[in-house]
């Protein structure tokens, strides 16, 4: 019986690892995280959100994006997949009309780079 315990513990660790990797979202195809961080500062996401690694991004309007890479749901209604995050960043007013986050007229390329940076926050 005592032998089983370490095995069970190891199994737990392995499974915990699996669970973690399935909850997180991987990377954004074709996204340049470094460019994304620059864009975040230019666009002004930090006026509403706290975003680690972006100077001055200490907003207290929307949710802090401290661990958005580990978050399961975005905008309270979308699964946190790369495509959904890109859609939300590009057209939040279409996803949840009348929410406080404005459409920022970003193109797909810019939104992908921003999403790539956000997924580095875990």
């Amino acid at each position, binding site marked *: 019986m005592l032998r089983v315990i370490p095995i069970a513990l190891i199994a737990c660790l392995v499974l915990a690892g699996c669970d973690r990797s399935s909850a997180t979202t991987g990377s954004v195809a074709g996204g340049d995280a470094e460019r994304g961080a620059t864009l975040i500062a*230019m666009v*002004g996401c930090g006026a*509403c959100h706290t975003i680690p690694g972006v100077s001055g991004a200490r907003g207290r309007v929307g949710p802090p994006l401290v661990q958005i890479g580990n978050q399961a749901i975005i905008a309270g209604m979308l699964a946190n997949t790369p495509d959904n995050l890109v859609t939300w960043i590009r057209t939040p007013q279409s996803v949840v009309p*009348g*929410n*406080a*986050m404005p459409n920022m*007229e970003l193109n797909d390329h810019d939104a992908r780079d921003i999403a790539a940076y956000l997924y580095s926050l875990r």
Partner: protein
Amino acid sequence: MSYLSGAGVKADPVVALTWGVLVISIAVVIIVSILLLAGIQRGRSRVAAVDIELQQVERRGNALALVYWGTAISTVVLFGALVWTVAVLAAINAPHAKPMLTIEVTGLQWWWKVRYLSDDPSRTITTANEIHIPTGQPVRVRLIGADVIHSFWIPALTGKTDTIPGQTNVTWLEAQRPGVYRGQCTEYCGEQHAHMAAFVVADTPDVFQTWWNDQLRPAAQPTTAQEVQGQVEVQFRCGACHMVRGTDAGGSVAPDLTHLMSRKTIAAGTLDNTIANLAGWIANPQAIKPGTRMPVLNLSGQEVSDITTYLQLLK
């Protein structure tokens, strides 16, 4: 925002004086240091191996001569610097020609109200934080203090002049070439003193006149349902402090928003004027600029969205 290079007839002599006095000061430090080290070295070799207590004070003729020379050279150099300084002060005291344009700048906690005065009252306009001027001519600036003492400073164009409640100060500036010149309040004026920037935007006279004519237009009218709703909310929620000319928003204690989107920053240079920054500022200004006179209005997401959408029209 550097005071080590100028961009106008008023700043250039000051910049030259700054560099000149800086060079003289550095030369003085170097010369004095060398003489001091040499003196220490000489004295040390002479008294080597002699009992310090038995050493007598020596008075040699050439030592006193050195003092005379030092005093004479210092006097000549300092007097030269004095004459130069007074000459520069005289040169920048008044512009070479009578200014055609007078702008009234009011320092407030923590922003600048900017009024363009004209003999024709219909051409008088009010804006904020961004001071547009034509190049190649002097512009008179009347400085008014509204609450506490602030100081108006555009390093590349003009030195500091205080805005004092109850007293109107007058200064002038002139830009030689088009450009954006950053300025800053330089009299500590409270919590957000550091977030009290001003920008002088110098353009050729033609471009400047076009800008002025543009600013005279009333605010753009809303068309979509959301824009109409946004205008209603701005009048209701923002209009007691802010003005949007042509609407019921008629407040005058905060920046005029009639042509908000023509400005490059919001909150006196605190944020770039992007839609994201605007939404964040409207929703929670106290998080961005704690102590600012703009309160948190407890707006809903829908209201923030409506107001931001409407404000985007105000070009």
